[in-house]
């Protein structure tokens, strides 16, 4: 556990008995998941295992066929848009930056809609968020089409942080990035988790992210979820988890892992 970062066992967000079905295809079958206050939780699973649907369900974008999602004990469907925006930040896979707005305007959009801050204060705050996300100062006036892949993710992260959410969902934050940029993003996530105390949920394929920075990992296998630390998951006899964690790539990622992380 990281010093000074209180990770309580109390769940900030919990999902109970989630069932998602598309036509005849059952994606999630009575799935349960508790996300603890202040932790970094990785969600992994094979292609088509329903990671994206789970993320949409947890953020309230998708209503499950049955089951409920509770944010701080309240059903997420009952939250007002204002409350939800202040509690949840989402980094979408391709950034989802609004192409007609500059980077700074993208970050300021949620502030404009949900706070009474004067414009100057919004601009100051946007500059801080962009800097927190590691964006160079001159990028604020740029438009999303002028940004590189890594910069798009950072700008989108700054926007996700705009309202100081309590829980941050990251959908494939390191995909399509070179490994150097990807480790930069990983470091950034840890820094934000520690500094802002924000709970982070990462949906990812990136084994380096899973092993390197996640306190716990949720494996989506067979329409259910298994949550544990990487070290305990390695002893799992579930074939898919075993194969994944003992693959050559996993060995490489485990070697690269920094000591002190992932043991929660």
């Amino acid at each position: 556990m990281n010093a000074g970062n209180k990770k309580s066992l109390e769940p900030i967000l919990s999902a109970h008995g989630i069932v998602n079905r598309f036509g005849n295809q059952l994606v999630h079958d009575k799935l349960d998941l508790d996300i603890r206050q202040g932790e970094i939780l990785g969600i992994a699973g094979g292609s088509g295992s329903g990671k994206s649907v789970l993320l949409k369900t947890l953020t309230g974008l998708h209503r499950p066929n049955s089951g409920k999602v509770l944010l701080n004990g309240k059903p997420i469907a009952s939250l007002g848009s204002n409350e939800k925006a202040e509690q949840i930040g989402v980094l979408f896979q391709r950034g989802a930056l609004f192409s007609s707005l500059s980077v700074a305007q993208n970050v300021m959009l949620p502030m404009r809609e949900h706070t009474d801050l004067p414009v100057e204060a919004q601009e100051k705050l946007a500059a801080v968020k962009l800097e927190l996300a590691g964006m160079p100062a001159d990028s604020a006036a740029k438009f999303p089409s002028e940004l590189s892949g890594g910069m798009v993710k950072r700008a989108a992260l700054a926007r996700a942080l705009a309202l100081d959410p309590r829980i941050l969902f990251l959908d494939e934050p390191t995909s399509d990035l070179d490994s150097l940029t990807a480790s930069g993003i990983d470091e950034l996530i840890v820094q934000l988790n520690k500094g802002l105390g924000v709970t982070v949920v990462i949906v990812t394929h990136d084994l380096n992210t899973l092993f390197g920075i996640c306190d716990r990992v949720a494996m989506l296998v067979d329409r259910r979820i298994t949550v544990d630390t990487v070290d305990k998951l390695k002893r799992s006899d579930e074939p898919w988890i075993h194969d994944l964690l003992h693959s050559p790539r996993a060995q490489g990622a485990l070697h690269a892992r920094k000591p002190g992380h992932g043991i929660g």
Partner: protein
Amino acid sequence: MPRASTTPPSSILAIHGDGNQMALEGVLDVRSLDQAHSALGQWLTQRKDRVLDLRKLSGLDTPGAMFLCELRDRHVELTGISAEHEQLLDLVCGLGRKELVKPKAVPGWREFIIRIGRGADAFGRDTYDVIAFVGKSLNALLRSLFHPSLWRPAAISRQITETGVNALPIVGVMAIMISFVIGYQGLVQLRPFGGQDYTINLVAVSILREMGVLITAIMVAGRSGSAFAAELGVMKTREEIDALEVMGLGPMELLVVPRLVAIIITLPLLTFFADVMGLVGGAILSQVELHISPLPFLDRVRLAVDTSDLFVGVVKAPIFAFFIGAVGCMHGLRVRGSAESVGRETTRAVVKAIFLVIIFDALFSILFERLGI
């Protein structure tokens, strides 16, 4: 935690103390920031050696932390900071906290002149692009014509269904409606002179010579010109066009020519269909308003128009079709990068196609007048 998250976010902030000592109690966040600003503003300017006690501060977010960092910069001593708040403060105070870089503002009149210049430049380039692309597609079209191996009957037939057959209902309805519009205008103007029967001549001549082909061309430009631009544009964004080129397959031969051939075949046919439907509209109108039944109506039409009127209308169709198709494909292939660009190019394709159709229609009118047709 910066903000107590199990309880609903409350923003109750109490500020007390006097002299050089002040204390914050409660939550310092976006909502209570104003309060803190106004309460501490005077204190900041009047006193020296100020101390702000934060022992009872229960919540802090980034705007609050920014405010505390500013206080620190102004030599206020912050005491009693909890470990969690200290981390947030360290993170935020450690940043440069620079001003947001804004694009340089340009004065309105210069902006206006810059726009005119840009517009003229874009117009020049556009004209060049259209001429170049028309040349390229004519070249590809003729080359395919003489090389049967380049014919793509399946693609052409699919495009004929898309651009032609599927457009029949809308074109038919439009033609009937337009003949009503013309007919009623004529009726109102001609009735005072007792010449309301000449409405039939008016409808027949204007539908066959002008309106039939014009309405059809505009409809097809909206339906198919936009579809060409969007289809090719999406292929471009997904790098499918690049994939074709790498495989040694020219997008001109494979994608543009079948579309052009299809639209050049279908637009004259659609025009003829629109002419027929326009006359049907005229027949309905004369039955209802003039009490002339369809057979005598046809007799009147035969007296009013001859083959050259039909010819004048239909002969324009392939030329309109070529420009609609070429402009649509050109804009589709001009898409760069994002999906946003697909929408922009599609709009431009339709606007430009309709513009060209009307320009050429005007030129044809002058030409036919000179030729005396």
